[in-house]
C-alpha cells in the first residue's frame, strides 16, 4: 500500500487520484473526529470539508516532515479549537441524537463528559483516532510520558465513571 506521505507528494505534483485516495482513507475518520466532539452534525460536516480544503490549499507548501496523519489532525484540531472558541469554552459533546442513542453510548458520552478536557482529548485521540503516543504528543505539544500518564489517568477515571452505569444497566 502506498504511504500517505507518498500520496500527498504525488498530489503536490498534480495527481488528482492520489488525493482522492487520501480522501477515501480519511473521510470517515475525520468526520467521526468532528462528530464526536461537536453537538451539530452540520458543523462537523463543514469542518471536515474545511480540513480537506485546507490540505488542498496548502499542498504546494507540504513537506513530509511528519506523518500525514499527524498533519491532517493538527489542521482538524486547530479548526475544532477555533469553532469551540466561537461557541463556548466548554462545549458539550455531541448530544444531538442522545435521545435515540443506546444506553451504553449514552453512558459513554456522559462518562467522557466528566473527564478533564485535556485528558478527554488524549483519550479520544487514542481510542477513536488510533493515534500513537508520539503523534498525540506532537499534536498537543506535550511530552510522550505526559501523554502516557494522562491517558492512564483518564482511562482509570473513565472506568470509575462507567462502573455505576454498567451496574445500573444490569440491575434494570
Amino acid at each position, binding site marked *: 500500500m502506498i504511504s500517505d506521505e507518498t500520496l500527498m507528494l504525488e498530489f503536490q505534483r*498534480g495527481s488528482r487520484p492520489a*488525493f482522492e485516495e487520501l480522501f477515501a482513507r480519511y473521510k470517515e475518520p475525520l468526520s467521526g473526529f468532528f462528530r464526536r466532539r461537536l453537538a451539530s452534525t452540520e458543523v462537523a*460536516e463543514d469542518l471536515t470539508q474545511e480540513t480537506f480544503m485546507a490540505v488542498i490549499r496548502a499542498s504546494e507548501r507540504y513537506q513530509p516532515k511528519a506523518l500525514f496523519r499527524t498533519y491532517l489532525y493538527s489542521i482538524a484540531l486547530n479548526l475544532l479549537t477555533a469553532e469551540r472558541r466561537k461557541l463556548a469554552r466548554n462545549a458539550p459533546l455531541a448530544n444531538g441524537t442522545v435521545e435515540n442513542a443506546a444506553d451504553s453510548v449514552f453512558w459513554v458520552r456522559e462518562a467522557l463528559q466528566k473527564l478533564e478536557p485535556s485528558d478527554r482529548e488524549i483519550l479520544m485521540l487514542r481510542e477513536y483516532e488510533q493515534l500513537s503516543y508520539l503523534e498525540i504528543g506532537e499534536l498537543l505539544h506535550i511530552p510522550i510520558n505526559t501523554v502516557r*500518564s494522562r491517558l492512564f489517568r483518564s*482511562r482509570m477515571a473513565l472506568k470509575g465513571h*462507567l462502573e455505576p452505569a454498567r451496574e445500573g444497566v444490569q440491575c434494570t
Partner: protein
Amino acid sequence: MHLETHPFDQEELMAFLDGELAVDRAAAVVSHLDGCQDCQKLAADFRGVSRQLAGWQVEQSGPALANSISAALDTHPGQSRGKLGFLLRRQTWAWAGGLCAAVLIGTVVIAPRLDKQHKLAQSVAFLKAENDGAFQIRDSNASTILETLRSPMIVRTVQLTIAVKDFAKTRSTVDEILKRHKGYIGQSNVSSPVDSGPVLEATLRVPSDQFEAAMAELKALGRVDSESQSGDEVTQQYVDVAARLANARNSEQRLTDLLRERTGKLVDVLAVEKEIERVRGEIERMEAERKNLAKSVDFATLNVKLFEEYRAGFQTPRSKSFRLRNAAIEGYRMTVESVTGAAAFLLAYGPSVLFWSAILFFPVRFIWRRLRHHLLNSL
C-alpha cells in the same frame, strides 16, 4: 500493584496493550501476564473500557462532502493548469534559473572533465535501466558512485616466469621491490626439486598505480621465460553492488523509521524487526562484496615464478669399503629378517598343526593298517 511483586507498573501494562512498549519489555510483560491474575484483571479492565468506548459509533458522512471536495479539486490550481501548468509555478522558474547557472559554471570550470563524466553518467544510466524495477539509485547515491568511478575499474592480473642466475640474491631483491612499491606477498612457496635449481612461486599484490614500475623491476631480475597479462573491467559490477547497497541502506532507514514512528501489535513490530535484521545481513554481505571488488582493483596481482637456471654437477664415485660395509649390513639385516619370519610362522601355525596331528594320528593309522591287511590277503 507494586514493583516488588510486579516487574512493571500499571502504565507500562497499558502501554503494552496499546502496542507502545519496546519489544524486549513487551516480551517480559507477556511472560508475566501468563501467571499474574492481578495484571490479567487490570488488562481486562483496560480492554473493557476500550470496548465500551468503541460502542460509540457515529453516522457516516454524506455524499455532499465528497461532492464538495471533488468540486474543490476541479478548481484547484494544481489541477487546472493542465500539462503545461508547471510553467506557471514559481518553483519551476527557480529551479530552471538554478539549473542554467549550474550549466554555465559547469561549462566554464569543469569543461575538460565533461567527456569523462558523461561516459560515467551513461554507465550509471545504463545500469539503472538494466535494473529497472529491482532498485532505484537515488541522486545522491549516483553522484557518490560517479565520484568513485573517475576511471574504469580494472582488475589486473599478470603471470610472469623468470629464470635467474643467483636465486638467493634474487629472492631478497623481490622483497626490496615489494617494499619500495608498497606491495606485499599474498602467498609464496619455495621448492628444490632433484636435478633442478630452486624455484619460488609467489603471488604478489602491488598497488595499481605502482604496477608498471614494479613489473619493469621484476623483469630486470633475469631472463623472462614467459609473460601474460589480463585485465577484467568490473566498473558495472561495482556500480551495481554500490547501488544495491545504497538501496538496502535506504530500506533499512525506512524500516527503522517505521519501527520508531508507527505503533501496532507486537507481532507487527516483531515482523518489522525481522525484516530489519534480514536487510542488515544483506547490507553486510554487499559491503564485503564491494570492498573485495575495490581491493582487487586497487591492488594488481602478479603470479611470479622464479627459478634458478640448472647447472649439472659432478658426482663423486662411491668407495669399495663403503659398498662392502653396506653389503654386510644388508646381509645381517636379511638374516635377522628370515629367522624372525620363520619363528613367526612356527608360532602362528605350529599349535594348530600339532592339534590336528594329535586328533588324526590314530584314525589314519587304523585305516592304513586295515588297507594294508586287505591288500596282503588279496595277494
